[in-house]
């Protein structure tokens, strides 16, 4: 557990970067500091490993004041992933990752062995170990940065905008990878970002800071979206927050209706007879959805339905009542309905086979029911 107790940081020029911050960061969770540029996120993070010393107040790590230890010793027990990775250009990837174990006195061979394991953990092929950082892509460098921070297996990991310099697709991969890693490792992670979407995706708890270094709200992502404490948080959380909040509501009560489906290769005239409201979903031999056909499309087709006749479908809603937990959210269900050309979202089971359809009306009704029963904060 990391506790900020009335922590203030005033820089020499008088700038108050952090103002009386009180915050408790739980073990084994991802806590995100988010806020506009200059609000004191980096300062707050760096006070945890004493790269910056607080002007007043105290920070406790597992109940002990961090000032009780030599900063270098404290830091060897806290992983740090810096923006732009900050890899050592003169060391190979493997030696970069081996840095902290070596500082802690590990033998070179042992440290490199451990480093090689970590490359696999963060999803990098072993051959990259021999390269220098300049020979890696930005995304690969970030992964090495994460591996290096994990090398000595520290209980705490500090991450300062680690994914902000890579393109959105790579960023998404890296975020998913971090969540996967965290589900295995259960570290206490403090993550800094200025991107509220990233905060909501990754955070178990999110601290929204405002400029001047004051804490605006400290809550779960769902609560942040549903109940921002003031206009600053509401506007920072963003315009679509009502829609995004649906992402935290399980779609268990959404009834799944029937959906017209025809196998690929069905003769067009047979298919025409099976349409529902002018549309049918086309499935493969395993009942997985391939796309849609409509009245208008079929009238042009003579013979069997072939792949080139299909209209591509929308997003899929995974509704697996058996394996609870994997069931999709209201957001998935609604998006499936809205993105479908037939206005019916396709519900699939865990194997990807079609089990039925959901419409926007049924999703909204389920939401209204959940609100009435008090399951959703209003």
């Amino acid at each position, binding site marked *: 557990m990391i506790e900020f107790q009335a922590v203030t940081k005033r820089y020499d020029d008088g700038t108050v970067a952090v103002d009386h911050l009180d915050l408790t960061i739980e073990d084994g969770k991802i806590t995100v500091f988010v806020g506009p540029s200059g609000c004191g996120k980096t300062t707050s993070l760096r006070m945890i*490993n004493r*790269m910056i010393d607080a002007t007043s107040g105290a920070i406790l790590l597992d109940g002990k004041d961090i000032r009780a230890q030599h900063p*270098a*010793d*404290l*830091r*060897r027990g*806290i992983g*740090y992933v*810096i*923006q*732009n*990775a*900050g*890899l*050592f*250009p*003169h*060391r190979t990837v493997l030696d970069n990752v081996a*840095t*902290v174990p070596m*500082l802690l006195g590990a033998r070179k061979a042992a440290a490199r062995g451990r480093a090689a394991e970590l490359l696999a953990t963060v999803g990098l092929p072993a051959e990259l170990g021999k*390269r*220098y*950082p*300049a*020979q*890696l*892509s*930005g995304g690969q*460098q970030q992964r090495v940065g994460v591996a*290096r921070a994990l090398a000595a297996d520290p209980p705490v990991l*500090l991450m300062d905008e680690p994914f902000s*310099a890579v393109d959105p697709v790579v960023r998404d991969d890296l975020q998913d990878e971090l969540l996967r890693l965290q589900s295995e490792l259960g570290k206490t992670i403090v993550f800094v970002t200025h991107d509220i979407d990233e905060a909501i995706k990754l955070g178990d708890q999110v601290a929204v800071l405002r400029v001047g270094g004051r804490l605006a709200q400290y809550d779960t992502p769902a609560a942040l979206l549903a109940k921002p404490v003031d206009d600053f948080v509401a506007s920072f959380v963003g315009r679509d927050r009502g829609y995004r909040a649906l992402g935290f509501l399980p779609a268990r009560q959404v009834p799944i209706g029937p959906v017209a489906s025809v196998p690929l290769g069905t003769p067009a005239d047979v298919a025409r007879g099976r349409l529902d409201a002018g549309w049918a979903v086309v499935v493969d031999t395993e009942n997985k959805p391939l796309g849609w056909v409509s009245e208008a499309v079929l009238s042009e087709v003579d013979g069997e339905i072939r792949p080139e006749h299909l209209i591509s479908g929308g997003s899929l809603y995974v509704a697996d009542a058996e394996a609870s937990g994997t069931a999709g959210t209201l957001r998935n269900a609604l998006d499936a309905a809205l993105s479908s050309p037939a206005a019916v979202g396709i519900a699939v089971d865990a194997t990807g086979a079609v089990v039925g359809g959901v419409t926007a009306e049924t999703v909204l009704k389920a939401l209204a029911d959940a609100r009435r029963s008090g399951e959703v904060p209003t």
Partner: protein
Amino acid sequence: MNWVGDHIGDLLSVSLDHLRLALAPVLVGLLLSLPLGWAANRWRLARAILVPVSGLLYTIPSLALFVMMPLILGTQILDPLNVQAALTVYTVALLVRSIADALAAVPAPVIAAATAMGYRAAGRFFAVELPLAAPVLVAGVRVAAVSNISLVAVGQIIGVGGLGYFLLHGAQSPPNYPEIISGVVLIVVLALLIDGLLAFAGSRLTPWARVGPKAGARR
């Protein structure tokens, strides 16, 4: 050409002497300029003094510096130490600035990362900052070595020894051209040889500097 054949042993042993006279100051100068360059990078005041002063020292003509040395060191005018000390001064003057600049060019995120990993200041200097400054450092050492090899020849005017002897001795009347040319050629060969060796050693020391567009560059 007979002269060369008769004096081949002398030429070689004097060449070795010449190298020792030129390179010992490079080594001493390097050891002195590391802490000075570090200080110039660390403190603004140190930089404000060290950089202009070393620039100034470098502009003093070599002969003037050689003959000034006895005044400063209290040595005899013909003491070989004068030239050694003067060449050390030149080396320091050359290297302080480039070391300070090279250290300043180490990317801030790399230094922050090293600090965050748990390096103490000294460990970080030797493990991260100095290696990253090495390419610039090697370039500075090459210039210092080559210029010292030619300056040692000038030092013969105050009797330091080395290949300059053949230039002065050969120039007495009647001039002995094979002797003069041998001296000149050997000085040039030594300079090229040392420069090449240092360049080779430098690139072996910094394999990482050859792979990317520039050190620390992304992608």
